[in-house]
């Protein structure tokens, strides 16, 4: 009966309750949508960064990550390969070696990062192959061949088929010099990559830079992002008996900027949402407050009948909770529906394409509806709204029966 009473009390002022519910629906919808949007963008960003570049996990020599010293190597990739092939949760892996060198075309010279990749394994880890815009990807047996970023190729005035003179320093300090032919030109969308990188076959890199069979990193892709910590632990465990000079780094350690940028975006997003919901909460607090003041006399009657202050508060909270729940449920469903629509059709934020591209995001973006975005969105609204109902409900607690009865 308490429940029936609460329900009927909610609809005593339908207009008022509907407005209040609408405010809650609005807040919930907005939050579910925005959070799905944020989480979707993070997933895409992480995925893009991982796939273009770093992979989920890398095995490197200790200290290589910070110093990029070409003498800090993974000396025996075959051994690593033996470990990785048998490890659960490892989807694919490849090896890379890299160093900075000067690259010249007929009349242009640029300093670039030369990366040695395994033409067969690389496509299973990164999307580089899909980003070839002209020419072709590297093939097994290729030797003096290179893939160049589009901006770099433009800067060098070198088309596919053009020759590049490479000048660098080998692992032992010897001069590394050769002539490479551009076989393909890639465009990742991220200017930083497209301006500063060329890729050559790993075997040839090892020969050219006198690597003596060593590489700089093993790049691992796991079955999923959530599997990363477990796989990392397994790799570290397997390595610990063999070579203590190696470090296992996950994508967070490999991309600290990305991780912090996401954290920052989350924090600032939450500040925005919190403020917004506080405004909503104050707006609806009035409804709850009125529900209490208008019915003071009624409460007096109930108290005279022996209803304790605790039960009275319970009744009021049940009413507020009812309104809140109706709003949150409708808001969640509507928010999920809107999000779902954009998840299928995508959405272009006008003016944001250029910015998005630089963060590895596609022009058309897709929010990602998840249990987390729904639960967090609905949860925040629910908690803050219920909190705003507490004040009016507590007012009732201090009510004296006689005063309540004499209220108009």
């Amino acid at each position, binding site marked *: 009966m308490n429940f029936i009473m609460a329900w009927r009390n909610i609809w005593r*002022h339908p*207009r*008022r309750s509907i*407005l*209040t519910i*609408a*405010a809650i629906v*609005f*807040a919930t919808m*907005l939050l579910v949508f925005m959070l799905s949007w944020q989480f979707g963008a993070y997933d895409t960003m992480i995925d893009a960064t991982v796939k273009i570049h770093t992979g989920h996990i890398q095995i490197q020599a200790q200290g290589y990550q910070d*110093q*990029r*010293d070409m003498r800090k190597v993974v000396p025996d990739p075959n051994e690593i390969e033996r470990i990785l092939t048998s490890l659960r949760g490892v989807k694919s892996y490849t090896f890379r070696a890299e160093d*900075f060198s*000067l690259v*010249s075309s007929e*009349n*242009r*010279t*640029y*300093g*670039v990062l030369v990366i040695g990749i395994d033409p067969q394994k690389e496509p299973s880890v990164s999307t580089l192959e899909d980003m070839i815009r002209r020419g072709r990807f590297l093939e097994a047996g290729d030797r003096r061949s290179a893939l160049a970023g589009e901006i770099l190729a*433009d*800067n060098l*005035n070198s088309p596919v088929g053009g020759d590049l003179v490479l000048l660098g*320093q080998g692992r032992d300090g010897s001069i590394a010099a050769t002539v490479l032919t551009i076989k393909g030109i890639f465009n990742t969308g991220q200017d930083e990559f497209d301006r*500063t990188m060329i890729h050559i076959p790993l075997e040839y890199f090892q020969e050219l830079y006198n690597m003596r069979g060593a590489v700089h990193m093993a790049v691992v892709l796991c079955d999923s992002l959530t599997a990363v910590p477990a796989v990392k632990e397994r790799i570290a465990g397997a390595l610990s008996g063999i070579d203590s000079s190696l470090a296992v780094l996950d994508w967070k350690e490999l991309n*600290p*900027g*990305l*991780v*912090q*940028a*996401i*954290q*920052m975006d989350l924090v600032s997003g939450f500040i*925005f949402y919190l*403020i*917004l919901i*506080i*405004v*909503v909460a*104050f*707006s*609806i*607090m*009035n*409804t709850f*407050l*009125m529900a209490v*003041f208008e019915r003071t006399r009624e409460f007096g009657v109930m108290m005279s009948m022996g209803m304790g202050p605790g039960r009275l508060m319970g009744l009021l909270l049940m009413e507020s909770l009812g309104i809140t729940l109706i709003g949150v449920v409708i808001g969640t469903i509507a928010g999920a529906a809107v999000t779902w629509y954009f998840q299928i059709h995508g959405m272009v*934020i*006008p*003016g*944001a*394409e*250029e*910015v998005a591209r*630089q963060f590895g995001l596609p022009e058309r973006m897709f929010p990602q509806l998840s249990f987390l975005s729904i639960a967090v969105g609905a949860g925040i609204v629910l908690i803050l709204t219920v909190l705003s109902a507490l004040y009016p409900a507590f007012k009732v607690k201090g009510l004296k029966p006689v005063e309540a009865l004499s209220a108009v």
Partner: protein
Amino acid sequence: MILKLAWRNIWRNRRRTAVILTAIVIGLWAMVFLSALMRGIADRMVKNAISTMTGHIKIYHAGYRNDPVIENRIENPGEIKNILQSLPAVRQFTSRIRVNAVAANARHSGGVTLVGIHPGREAGISFTGDAVTEGEYLKDEESQGILVGRALLEKYETRIGHKLVLMSRDASGEIASRAFRIRGIYDAELESTERQFVFVNLAAAQEMLGVNGDVTEFSLLIDDYEEAAAVAASVGRRFDGDDLAVYSWKELLPLVVAVLKMYDGFILFWFAAVFIAIAFGLVNTILMAVFERIREFGLMRALGMKPSFVVAEVSAESFFLLFIGTVAGNLLGAASVAALSQRGIDLSAFAKGIEFAGMSRIIFPVLELGDILTADAAVLVLGMAVGLYPAIRAARFSPVEAMVHM
């Protein structure tokens, strides 16, 4: 009379008025403060980008922008200098040589941007003037010294006084190489800046590249950077016949402009969201106030009061609430901006993240009149518009309805 009535009516239920005012004030405060914060971030981003070797306006050889090599240089800097000096719109300018180079020491090598500068003129234009935190700034007549960023120094594991070799193609297409001594270390907003730019004397760069007095760019400051496009166009007309191109910072920094545009959109979105949140509360509160006085309105009508009077009275109540809330919200917003404008908000905890996002380490919120006016106007005008609903509802109470209702 209407105003007096409305004013008294809103204070009839103080608690209710206080609650809705709180909502409006928090809303307005959030609009003002958070937009100031975003403008602050954007402002720093723009200033930072401008001071990082861009300036408000740049003059290049026509081919340099797409192909930034020493061949595409300006061969008559003296003439340009004379013309620029004669232009009142140009407050300050300097010339530079800027080319891609390789920097190497015994341990490392990597790509950098070699910038040859007039130390004196440069100081007032780019960030270099007060960024040197260790060692000293370049002197005018010195040909050996080089300034490097702290991040570069750490990467190369070197220190002040040590040698750094720079290599680049010279005017004849040969690789020129020259050793410099690290004279000073600068700190910049972004680590990527510290890793990218190394500074030497213009004369030393000219000598190294064999260009004998030529430069690759002029960088100009004008009085109001918002006017850059117009000034760039008028400067451009002075050099019509020459093989030169003049760009404003907006053309040179498309990414920054894109971010600014995104922020504009975001601020509007934020305003809309907060306004909607306020609107629900406002309509509900006024509606409650109106229904509570249903008898009164019925009576007014029975006494022959015109409906328009009732609409005006109720609208005046909305107006008072909105007006008080807006004024208080603005003051509170301005006060919080003022409180933070001395020390700023330190985001060092997210150092890597702000680097990633291209933001600066400390944010100083910036009040923009345009934003405040937009927020205020939106809340007042739209608020009055939604307030019409309860007002019209009140005007429709007939004496009979009023009696039945109680």
